[in-house]
């Protein structure tokens, strides 16, 4: 039981981050806080993927040693020595999408603030209804 908790509590941390981000996205009225919640949500997913690439026991980043000097291709590669590279690659793509959505969302928020002089959702809806 205790061994199970020790080997799985990292997943629960990501669940916690994800729920915090989801709560901020759904329940907060301020648009900037909603954006921050979205970022926390995405960060939780990225952390989860990166943690699947970890291997215990003397593992380094997936940059092959003895690669230079022309003889590199003949060295046998010990896959237990390097972390799994594929989650890193996928999360690089996800980070790019995260930055793109963040930029567009903040730009839209700037325009909303210029138009309504507030970022609170209920006040914006009130002033739309008032016309």
């Amino acid at each position, binding site marked *: 039981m205790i061994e199970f908790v020790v*080997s*799985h509590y*990292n*997943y*629960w941390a990501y*669940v*916690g981050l*994800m*729920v915090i981000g*989801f709560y901020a996205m759904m329940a907060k009225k301020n648009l900037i806080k909603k954006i921050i919640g979205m970022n926390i949500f995405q960060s939780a997913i990225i952390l989860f993927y990166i*943690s*699947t*690439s*970890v*291997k*215990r*026991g003397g*593992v380094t980043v*997936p*940059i*092959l*040693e003895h*690669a*230079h000097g022309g003889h*590199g*291709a003949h060295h046998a*590669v010990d*896959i*237990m020595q*390097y972390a*799994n*590279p*594929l*989650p*890193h*690659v996928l999360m*690089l*793509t996800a980070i*790019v*999408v995260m*930055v*793109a*959505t963040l*930029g*567009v969302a903040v*730009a*839209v928020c*700037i*325009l909303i603030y*210029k138009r309504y002089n507030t970022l609170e959702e209920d006040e914006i809806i009130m002033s739309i209804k008032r016309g």
Partner: protein
Amino acid sequence: MGAGLIYGTLDMPKWGDPHSPASTHVSPYYLHHGLEHTATPNVVTSVLADYRGYDTLGETTVIFTAGMACILLLRRGRSREEKRHD
């Protein structure tokens, strides 16, 4: 929602398990053959720029689109404000 996610983690492999499914099926291929296929010691780079080159090209399109959207939105706002001041 959190309870459902935690229920899902009960079947996950242990943290740092070298024999987890994620690191036993596809990724050894890239670690073994990445160097001879692409002559790049950094496996992340060789997967990103060589095996998944078209995907990365599409990714730059995403950044470009986002940048253009930001520029257009912010410039439109500014020019309107200038007109209002004039």
